[in-house]
């Protein structure tokens, strides 16, 4: 067993927000068939949103580009999904939430409390939703206020998911820590765009969106590395993790656990695969505890 901000995980792989997290049944499947140590829901807000028009996600040569637009049924609509996930997944279920202000974050968190999420993850990093996400997450004062507001009304751990689309992510991480965050999650997608040259149209319905997958792994590793130096609280690494090697790299950079998103495209049991791969690596290299990996790169000088 593996402990992360007080949650007990059977392994350090976590389903990332916005991936296979719209329904409770899907979250259960990722936990049971996929082998995830914990699952994060789709980001939930205060009112139902249908999101951006399609195409909302395309596969590129390197990674994926998406602009879903935070579609969600609102917290009242999502409660039954959360309950299903809690009842049948047998792993910690983290509720991802978003809002346009500290009060809205608070409202959504309180609204989901009856579903008994094991933790909250605050989405202050979605790169393509006006007034939400990165609009908040690139402002340290707002990040601190939002974090403090949610901490104030819940008694489960609060994680804050950060955007890499800032000059200095550690400054945002520090704000989250000051606001009382129990962990930060880095990184959300990198702002990106693709254009269909046959027509001239931007490919995404929202014109631009966020880049995920292999393309951004080095960006994520760097952010995790910097946050590990800057913060006291754990850093959860996410961004382009698609193999056990990636997970080990992320942990050596300073991640206490990893989240996996786009890589479910390749196979659902990527979580088991990573977790088995890490165990085998620890054994082969003679590490006695996975904790020895965390932040190892900082010691190698």
């Amino acid at each position, binding site marked *: 067993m593996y402990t992360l901000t007080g949650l007990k995980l059977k392994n350090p792989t976590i389903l990332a927000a*916005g*991936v*296979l*997290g*719209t*329904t409770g*049944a*899907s*979250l*259960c*499947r*990722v936990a049971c068939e996929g082998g995830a140590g914990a699952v994060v829901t*789709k980001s939930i807000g205060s009112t*139902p*949103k*249908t*999101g951006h*028009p*399609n*195409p*909302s*996600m*395309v*596969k*590129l040569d390197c990674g*994926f580009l*998406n602009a*879903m637009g935070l*579609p*969600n*049924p*609102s917290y009242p*609509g*999502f409660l039954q*999904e959360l309950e299903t996930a809690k009842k049948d997944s047998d792993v910690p279920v983290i509720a991802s939430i978003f809002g346009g202000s500290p009060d809205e974050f608070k409202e959504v968190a309180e609204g989901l409390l009856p579903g008994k999420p094991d933790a909250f993850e605050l989405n202050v990093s979605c790169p393509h939703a006006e007034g939400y996400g990165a609009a908040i997450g690139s402002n340290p004062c707002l990040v601190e206020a939002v974090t403090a507001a949610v901490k104030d009304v819940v008694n489960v751990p609060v994680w804050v998911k950060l955007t890499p689309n800032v000059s200095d992510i550690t400054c945002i991480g520090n704000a989250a820590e000051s606001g009382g965050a129990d962990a930060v999650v880095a990184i959300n997608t990198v702002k990106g765009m*693709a254009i*269909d040259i*046959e*027509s001239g*149209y931007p*490919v995404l*319905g929202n014109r631009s969106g966020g880049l995920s997958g292999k393309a951004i792994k080095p960006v994520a590793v760097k952010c995790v590395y910097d946050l590990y130096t800057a913060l006291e609280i754990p850093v959860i690494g996410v961004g382009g993790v698609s193999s056990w090697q990636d997970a080990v790299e992320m942990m050596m950079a300073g991640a206490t656990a990893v989240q996996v*998103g*786009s890589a*479910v*495209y390749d196979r659902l049991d990527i979580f088991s695969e990573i977790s088995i791969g890490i165990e085998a690596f620890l054994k082969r290299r003679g590490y006695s505890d996975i904790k020895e990996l965390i932040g190892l790169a900082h010691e190698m000088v």
Partner: protein
Amino acid sequence: MLPLNATVVKINEESPSVRTFFFDYQFETMKAGQFVMVWVRGVDEIPMGLSSKNSITVQKVGEATSKLFELKEGDSFGLRGPFGVGFSLPSKGEKTLVIAGGVGAAPLAPYAEAARIAGSEVHTVLGARSADDLIFEKRFAEAGNVYVSTDDGSKGTKGFVTDVLNDLDLSAYDRIAVCGPEIMMVSVFRLLEDRKLLEKSEFSLHRYFKCGIGICGACCIDRSGLRVCRDGPVFSGVQLLDSELGKYTRDASGRRVKI
């Protein structure tokens, strides 16, 4: 994969509200039942079952399909695919029953053809509101026997496909492939469940898709959590036991909507 640029080379009017758009690209590896994401630029991108290697057959139901209906030969749209799991082909000598309702005939016509080529005896139950709305009757007829039903009795049996099915010896078929409006599919599902034939049957589901490639989870069905866009759209009857089929679907926001 970014959408490829498909140019309309021919348009067939299949019924007053259904048209087939042939395009200048052949999906050579396409399995009947697989779908493509059709990008009507500046409007939306919608999933559409392939009605042949180089065509989609579209019912005018919303903004994107209305825009599609404005296209003329030479116009183009974006296409990604083929995606998802199609219908299983029969082996040589097996008997196949195709049950198609309305525009659900679109992915089943290439299936009936492929099944026939695979050496299967193919029978089709083809239903529609009225004679004018029957899609691909000729293609099905070229693949084998066709039993027609229409709601208004303007052709074939008056009533629903289930009325035809009641008169057939369903146990004689090795495979049963179903596609049509959900209300029709759930009737067929119950009938096949009663006859203990779900193991031989496959159903093609329609749900709201966002990513279309199995990542976002918008199209997952209860209680299995299976993704219609990736684990489906074609599911075996057994996979749909105890499912949301015929009960509810989810809208673009993820809210449950009764069927």
